[in-house]
């Protein structure tokens, strides 16, 4: 499916010099209407790209914003975000399990909302803020949701955990803090076959009580 070359697109800092030609294309995704806001035409910045151009099926240069860093890579249009992250960018935290927008193991945060990265084309993720589990902690400190996962024994085999942490982070960051019902609903797009739900809900609820991120 996708090319499996490791690290096809090296991670570059924001200071990296402007890219040339095709890859300068910026797709600006619009709206991302948050709860409570009326999404109206005009909220999104002008889409600048002359995008009425056919791309692919051979690999196309794209730019993704991952954990605050701009990353250049080449993907066929069919490559999903999870495959680009795992196979080309060595971001292997998000897991590919069902690959059908159901289990939630591939959950990453895009423009502040949890999304199934198995069901978003990498080419469509351009111009959007992508946060992965690799970006929410440092060597020395874990994110409060991760801390509470440890405290509340919220994982067993751990394969669903990165997705649950990311889905949990979105709701734990909410202000005012979510109720337990809000937490259950916010985690309903993630499946854990070990059945760690009780601990996971407690962990996310506790993290939210302690101020989320």
């Amino acid at each position, binding site marked *: 499916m996708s090319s499996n070359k490791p690290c096809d697109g090296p991670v570059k800092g924001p200071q990296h010099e402007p890219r040339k030609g095709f890859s300068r294309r910026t797709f600006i995704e619009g709206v991302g209407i948050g709860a409570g806001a009326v999404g109206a035409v005009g909220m999104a910045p*002008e889409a600048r790209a002359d*995008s009425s151009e056919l791309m692919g*099926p051979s690999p196309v240069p794209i730019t993704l914003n991952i954990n605050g860093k701009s990353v250049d890579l080449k993907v066929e249009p069919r490559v999903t975000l999870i495959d680009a992250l795992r196979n080309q960018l060595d971001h292997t935290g998000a897991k590919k399990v069902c690959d059908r*927008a159901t289990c939630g193991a591939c959950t990453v945060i895009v423009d502040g909302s*949890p999304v199934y990265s198995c*069901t978003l084309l990498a080419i469509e993720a351009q111009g959007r803020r992508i946060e992965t589990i690799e970006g929410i902690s440092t060597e020395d400190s874990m994110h409060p949701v991760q801390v509470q996962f440890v405290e509340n024994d919220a994982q067993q085999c751990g394969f669903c955990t990165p997705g649950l942490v990311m889905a949990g982070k979105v709701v734990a960051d909410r202000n005012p803090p979510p109720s337990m019902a809000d937490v259950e609903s916010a985690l309903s*797009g993630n499946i854990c076959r070990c059945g760690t739900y009780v601990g996971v809900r407690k962990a996310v609820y506790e993290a939210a009580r302690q101020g989320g991120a």
Partner: protein
Amino acid sequence: MQNFEYIAPTETITAAQALSPHDGVTAVLAGGTDLLSLMKERIETPTRVVSLRNIRALRGVHGTGGALRIGAMASVEGVLGSSGASSYKSLLQAGRGITAPQVRAMGTVVGDLLQRPRCWYYRNGYGLLAMHEGKSLVPNGENRYHAILGNKGPAYFVNASSFAPALISLGASVTVAGPEGEREMPLADLFRIPASESERENTLMPNEIVTEIMVPSASGWRTATYEVRQRQLLDWPLVTASVAVRLRGGKIADARVVMGHVAPIPWRSSEAETALKGQALGESAGEAAGKAAVAAATPLSQNQAKVQLASVAVKRAVAMVA
């Protein structure tokens, strides 16, 4: 997934012109929550994907002029969270059944209307009608989630849209854009029961795009949606019913009753509407409407239970508006 060429125009007309007039050659990509799964299963194998993401005109949710307008790229979350939708109770109740925040953020309301059937024969490559040696496999097969109405065959799947029953009961219409321009039609006319494997379950031409849903003002209407669910979270409901009624002098003057997950199209029940008209809103009216809604039901070998579930869904939706 079979590879494809990709285009993301900024104008609807360009998008429509990039689509093939022939079925199955090109695909329209909005939220992708259904299309990508179908492509991974090779049930859909387009050679070109036309993305709507750069078309600004399709992004909005407007609550102006007494009507609600939902653009093709408006997400479920965006619509449910909009102030414009807050007066459409049945719409909000229908949307709450879609619980996964990932689907709510990525999936669009128009995409919910146009999702392909969830029938497991179709999803496992047996074709839309699951035909085998000239006969559908469904009537004597695994059909416990299949149709109980509109199921004379050869289509036995159910329309799985969460929003369609509520929207139809609210009198919604849709705008459809093709390479030569736009047309409008009542939402109910978007759906059809296919008569052969070469037909789809909607009336769109392969190069047409639903650009907008228009919901007229619900002022004066009492509306509700009731879902019968096996699981409270993540899954589709077993049966759903949306009701809209208008009272005059304490009696029901106008009524619209639409059921979901019971037929290959969202099923409007004129029998239930007749049962409601002229009655006072209350338990007996709901009971009568529920009975009338399934009077013509023809369950298959395994889905007799859905008849009772549908009847109860209608009854409870009426109770919610009372």
